[in-house]
């Protein structure tokens, strides 16, 4: 039986492989190729070498977006994980109504980013209007607006992952620690956190990449205003590609650079946190 599976597995893999190739590998390779081309529609392109890559840094909007995105990612990764972990700790204590709270916290994640963006735009503009300001008055408002929105959306999701991690800790470990006289902070630091390290790996990975790739929320909330100051990387790429005639190739090469940055950061992060994981 096992031998048969081994022999025929390419046949079983083939459909997925085909789909993966058509849906991912081929567009990706085409995209890399297009980043060296000048084109209006993707179907007729002319090879021009590295010119697109040189053009990226002629203006400082890409660098600005990069800095803005990095700051945003740092803030959200920290806040989301701390908050999600805290909520998860609370909701594993066995209070009454725990399930209701878990559902409520998780629900924002089920709403699409564009809708969330517009809803929060209305909410935040409503509050800021009292001070004669709007969300797009300056990038600072946009930045914190985005942070609030992202927290609201992602804390619930990460909370679920942390809850699963915390519930997987064997009760006897904590019991043993208690018998040995460990205080609550000590249990948290020396038992719970090392035991949920796999969850932390996943959650930091997700929040990190989500932070970098954030697009619809950004589009709906501020659309980069004012003067592209609240424009994050993904939106900057989109606007370069679609917003400027003759810059399609530049947008494409920005996308390639973006891909490399996200890949490198995600791999480094994965390596760092995985090394801290412990076996039971």
């Amino acid at each position, binding site marked *: 039986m096992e031998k048969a599976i*081994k*022999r025929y*597995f*390419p046949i079983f*893999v*083939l459909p997925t*492989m*085909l789909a*993966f*190739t*058509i849906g991912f*590998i*081929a567009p990706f*390779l*085409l995209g890399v190729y297009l980043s060296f081309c000048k084109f*209006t*529609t*993707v*179907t*007729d*392109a002319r090879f021009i070498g590295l010119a697109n890559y040189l053009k990226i840094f002629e203006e400082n909007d890409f660098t600005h977006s990069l800095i803005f995105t990095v700051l945003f990612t740092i803030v959200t990764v920290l806040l989301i994980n701390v908050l999600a972990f805290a909520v998860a700790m609370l909701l594993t204590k066995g209070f009454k109504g725990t399930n209701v709270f878990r559902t409520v916290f998780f629900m924002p994640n089920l709403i699409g980013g564009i809708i969330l963006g517009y809803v929060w*735009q209305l909410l935040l*503009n409503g509050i800021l*209007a009292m001070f*004669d*300001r*709007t*969300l*797009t*008055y*300056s990038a600072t408002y946009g930045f914190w607006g985005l942070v609030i929105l992202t927290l609201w959306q992602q804390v619930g999701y990460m909370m679920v992952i942390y809850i699963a991690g915390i519930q997987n800790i064997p009760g006897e470990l904590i019991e043993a620690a208690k018998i040995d006289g460990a205080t609550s902070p000590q249990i948290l630091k020396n038992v719970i956190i090392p035991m949920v390290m796999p969850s932390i790996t996943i959650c930091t990975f997700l929040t990190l990449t989500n932070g970098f790739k954030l697009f619809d929320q950004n589009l709906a909330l501020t*659309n980069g*205003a*004012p*003067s*592209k100051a609240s424009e994050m990387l993904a939106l900057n790429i989109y606007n370069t590609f*679609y*917003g*400027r*005639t*003759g*810059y*399609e190739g530049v947008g494409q090469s920005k996308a390639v650079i973006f891909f490399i940055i996200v890949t490198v950061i995600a791999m480094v992060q994965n390596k760092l946190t995985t090394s801290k994981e412990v076996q039971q």
Partner: protein
Amino acid sequence: MRNVKRWLALSMVAAMAAGTLAGCGGSSSAAESAAPASSAAAESSAPAESEAEAPAEASAEGGKVYYLNFKPEQADQWVALAEKYTEETGVQVDVQTAASGTYESTLKAEMAKSDAPTMFQVNGPVGLASWKDYCYDMSGSKVYADLASDDYALIEDGKVQGIPYVIETYGIIYNKAILNDYFSKDYATIKSIDELNNFAALKTVAEEIQANKDDLGVEGAFTSSGMDSSSDWRFKTHLANLPIYYEYKDKGIGATDAIEGTYLDNYKQIWDLYINNATCEPSMISSKTGEDAASEFALGEAVFYQNGTWAYNDIKDNEVADEDLGMLPIYIGATGEENQGLCTGSENYWCVNSKADPADIQATLDFMAWVVESDAGREALANEMGFVTPFTTFDEYLPANPLVQANAEYTKAGKTAVSWNFTTMPSENWKNVLGSALLEYAQGTGDWDAVKTAFVDGWATEYAAANAQ
């Protein structure tokens, strides 16, 4: 084990080859424009599907029309008109409308598809530059024959590449009832609409209305100058036309690779007037939309509203009666502006996709001819959409739009219409940067020098970028 690896390698190579071939199929079919791009691309990826499609296409006499419409205001009317045409002739006509401010990106995405639009729009010479490879020469077409004058069409190297289907006019739309109310007050320095024919008078009126807004029952003289993308084109494009117009006029040119900005101070004057005498604080305009301004005007909360004839659909049937709608020229304080008329021109040119199937091209040309020649088409264009067209076939079809009539009055009075020079603005990006600078200046987070830089330096760099090969 080795066997398995070989299998895996083989299948991966096969999968990859299939993927690349599919990719090649798409690009080569577009390169040879004679081949119908749609069927070639479809065949390489899904032969079964294209076979199924073929008979359906044949029954529609080999041609169909896909129109990507630029004007969201008339989206529904176009769909209805297309249905009528299909009913009459059996030819399939699809109409899609891009959301406000997304036409270029939608067009770019749609053009890359196998079922690309057969009929699309460009906004003038600059828009044409990026799509000229896709423009079919319409010199032999009926629509072109119906055009009242060659001056209207976009003609390059003897090829008729774009045909405008609407002539539009913009200025400062005003509410006659409130304005007359103001004229009758003691505090009014200006006593009649005839005196309101230069910037100084406009400024006086606006400031006096603003100061007595409670007495007049309005929220402000001007509607909010929203800088949301649904509204910012009114200022970064249409208002910016005036300083460009006067500079061109002084120099006797129709386009330039470097603008000097000689009328920028006038641009600042009028912008200051707009933002300081409006229904909202200047710090709030970044999130004000086009709908906000339209509703403020339609509900009688503001007297002045800079927009054009196309706005009639949005403001009619509300608080403001049709006979109370008037339009003033935009006065910026240039010499001799007493004789200035409204801004009249077109930025809506029909183009036919030259890379579409020949049968589809023919179907598209037939559809266009039907729109400007048949009763149903003329009725829809003139009366339902409220367009003034440049075609000779429309003599008996003048729209009931009061804003259009306002323009006719100015022309009759011998005023010189301001031409639409914003079609020569070097790029979308130039407008966007200018818009951002205007906004920052209005909010107080930036200064006027940034607007100057965007206007003058931006023009030169964008012009160079857009025309570099």
